[in-house]
């Protein structure tokens, strides 16, 4: 069935380094993608989104890259901080305004 998957279940980085979290999606009709951050005991927190007519979008310390040719999405976090430690989910929206399809998540651990 349709799925959004992550290449790495865990990622450990040193404080100050850049982090890259990858995601593959399977529905070529998806036109909207979102990255969420989820801390323990909390709901997912919106980080950044990108529409399929773009291949890159930047936020504060975060950049999302979209490669529609290979159906790949990545989240780059610059100068990773201990507060960035969390589980990161990518999600795709295959139908405007409808449900999101989530991947399994990548746990990011930042070492001081």
């Amino acid at each position: 069935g349709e799925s959004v998957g992550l290449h790495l279940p865990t990622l450990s980085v040193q404080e100050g380094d850049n982090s890259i979290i990858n995601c593959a999606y399977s529905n070529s009709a998806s036109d909207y993608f979102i990255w969420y951050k989820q801390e323990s005991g909390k709901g997912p927190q919106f980080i950044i989104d990108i529409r399929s007519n773009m291949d890159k979008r930047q936020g504060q310390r975060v950049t999302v890259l979209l490669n529609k040719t290979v159906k790949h999405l990545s989240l780059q976090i610059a100068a990773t901080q201990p507060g960035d430690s969390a589980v990161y989910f990518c999600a795709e929206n295959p139908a405007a305004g409808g449900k999101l399809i989530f991947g399994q998540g990548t746990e990011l651990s930042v070492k001081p």
Partner: protein
Amino acid sequence: GAGVSQSPSNKVTEKGKDVELRCDPISGHTALYWYRQRLGQGLEFLIYFQGNSAPDKSGLPSDRFSAERTGESVSTLTIQRTQQEDSAVYLCASSLYRSNQPQHFGDGTRLSIL
């Protein structure tokens, strides 16, 4: 402004009992979604409400699950005759109903079935 509010934050109940979970969306958000998250996993879509349109119930796992929404306000998710496999965090999200708008989540209800 206030975010999505869910209650209770935790619920422990015995197998076979019915439970009702509540969600208050962000004011002005016409779309409301329920998801389920099992331990260590991603989110599974359950149901989606948009205005007066018929809800998308395609993610409900069985007829023990149902949900209602009052206008464009509060929603309740009801699970009847709970089973141990229903143990999970139930998350609610809301969004503006325009194409490609992010969904904003509450902190969920952690449901434990004994």
